[in-house]
């Protein structure tokens, strides 16, 4: 009786190892093969946003702080475009690998465990976010929109929202029944976050109930942290934002592990 209980627990405990990096390497190799077409969206979109909203719309906007509008939105873009990168990678990307290319099946036939695969997917999603963050950081620095050398800390800090958005997205993917059903996730969760997380206007402008909702949006916290780092006005409240994201990232990583395994191990 005891032996059976033990065995069952052994099966249920996630089996994560460093071999997750092998999965990450596979994704990197494919990315390096396809980088021209993979890179075009993350390259162009932030530029268009800065130009259209920052330069175009920004001419009509006067902020209480005296900041120019383009300066105001720049740090927010550091948060939301990488959010798109990580979410798309662990949404459409992971779903396609799992269901269409049967890549997961091929990998788990080797000493790599399914938990390694899930971890590798998330690490890769976070890497895509990091690539995007680095690119936007270079662009807005060159544009003269960064005021503090603390902005360099954006890069290490970006690991946290990267893992968070990748884990959230993969958790949804684990219950998605078709590739088109991922549209719900992006339409109902990612797109509203893009517009409402305090990138394009201060969250305080929203009615109170909407501010409460915004607090629950993961992107809001990333935006706050990046805003503080690029302006140099870092405070203790931002530690709270970081902890918030770490907790959410950890929770969704565990959810992704169990939910994916439930879907795949049959």
């Amino acid at each position: 009786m005891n032996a059976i209980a033990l065995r069952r627990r052994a099966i249920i405990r996630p089996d994560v190892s460093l071999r997750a990096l092998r999965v990450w390497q596979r994704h990197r190799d494919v990315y390096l093969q396809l980088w021209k077409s993979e890179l075009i969206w993350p390259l162009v979109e932030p530029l268009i946003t800065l130009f259209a909203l920052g330069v175009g719309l920004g001419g009509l906007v006067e902020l209480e702080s005296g900041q120019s509008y383009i300066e105001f939105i720049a740090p927010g873009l550091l948060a939301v475009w990488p959010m798109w990168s990580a979410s798309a990678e662990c949404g459409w990307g992971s779903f396609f690998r799992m269901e269409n290319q049967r890549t997961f099946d091929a990998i788990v036939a080797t000493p790599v465990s399914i938990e390694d695969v899930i971890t590798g997917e998330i690490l890769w999603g976070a890497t895509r976010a990091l690539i995007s963050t680095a690119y936007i950081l270079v662009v807005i620095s060159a544009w003269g929109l960064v005021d503090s050398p603390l902005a360099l800390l954006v890069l290490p800090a970006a690991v946290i929202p990267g893992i968070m958005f990748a884990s959230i997205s993969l958790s949804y993917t684990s219950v998605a029944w078709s590739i088109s059903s991922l549209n719900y996730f992006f339409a109902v969760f990612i797109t509203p976050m893009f517009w409402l997380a305090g990138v394009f206007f201060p969250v305080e402008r929203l009615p109170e109930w909407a501010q409460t909702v915004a607090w629950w949006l993961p992107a809001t916290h990333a935006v706050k942290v990046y805003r503080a780092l690029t302006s140099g006005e870092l405070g203790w409240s931002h530690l709270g934002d970081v902890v918030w994201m770490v907790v959410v990232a950890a929770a969704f990583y565990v959810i992704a592990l169990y939910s994916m395994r439930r879907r795949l191990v049959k």
Partner: protein
Amino acid sequence: MSEIIRARDIVKRYGTFTAVDGISFSVTAGECFGFLGPNGAGKTTTIRMITCVSPLTAGELTVDGMDVRQEPRRIKAALGVVPQDNNLDPDLSVRQNLRVYGRYFDLPRRLVEERIDESLALFQLSDRANARIASLSSGMQRRLTVARGLINAPKILVLDEPTTGLDPQARHLVWQKLRYLRSQGVTMLLTTHYMEEAAHLCDRIVIVYQGKIIAEGTSAELVERFAGRQVVELHVGEGDRAPIVERLAGLEGVSVEEVEDIIYVYVLSENGFDPAGLKLEATRVVYRQANLEDVFLRLTGRGLAE
């Protein structure tokens, strides 16, 4: 002769459906062991349990002396798996596919490169090393999938319907490579529903039906035991069938089966009985050697299993 896979009463249930219903078998190192059965018989499920991707519901299963529940990673390190569906990486070249796969086993890079060159030569893919997967024919893709399964020099090569969907030329080329591997002492485990494939490659065959093993032996033994030496196929119109069946029923060492418009006469004994002497009245009479297909159809029925 050492036992390399040992299954005792293994069971796989999905809810109330029992896919594998308590089967036992043992595979000896160096042999080619075949699972033969119709679609849905439980072959692939059994393979998935052996390759540690599907947990057992009950029973004991050891591979190379290790329990599938305890040592999945070490077992998988000793296996080469050739899946039924093509899951090569379409965005990578032939060589990159093998390189990436070798990395999953944590093999040293130089060793992997050496094996890739050997494998590509063996599977006649050397000139396609840098080709994209989409540009390969289905036969080449299959050969590459087998080559990929060999990258870790596995103790056991597990092949799930290795030639399904291939044209005869491509199939024979795959068979030729598999025979070569067998001659090199690689233990092989394969599932198939091609009788010819099983007869061609397997030292020992089990016939799986509805989650159970219903017969086991070499191809020749199974044919001898269940279909006899010779088969006579009589194509007879509906009205003329009854008298023929009646006449045959009295004969010794003969087993008769009526399927739609054909009467099958299995000549089981070899006591000098000559089926040609029957001089049966039929539209068409075919005398032929009994084969594995006869065994299969006799044991698993002629209706659609699905």
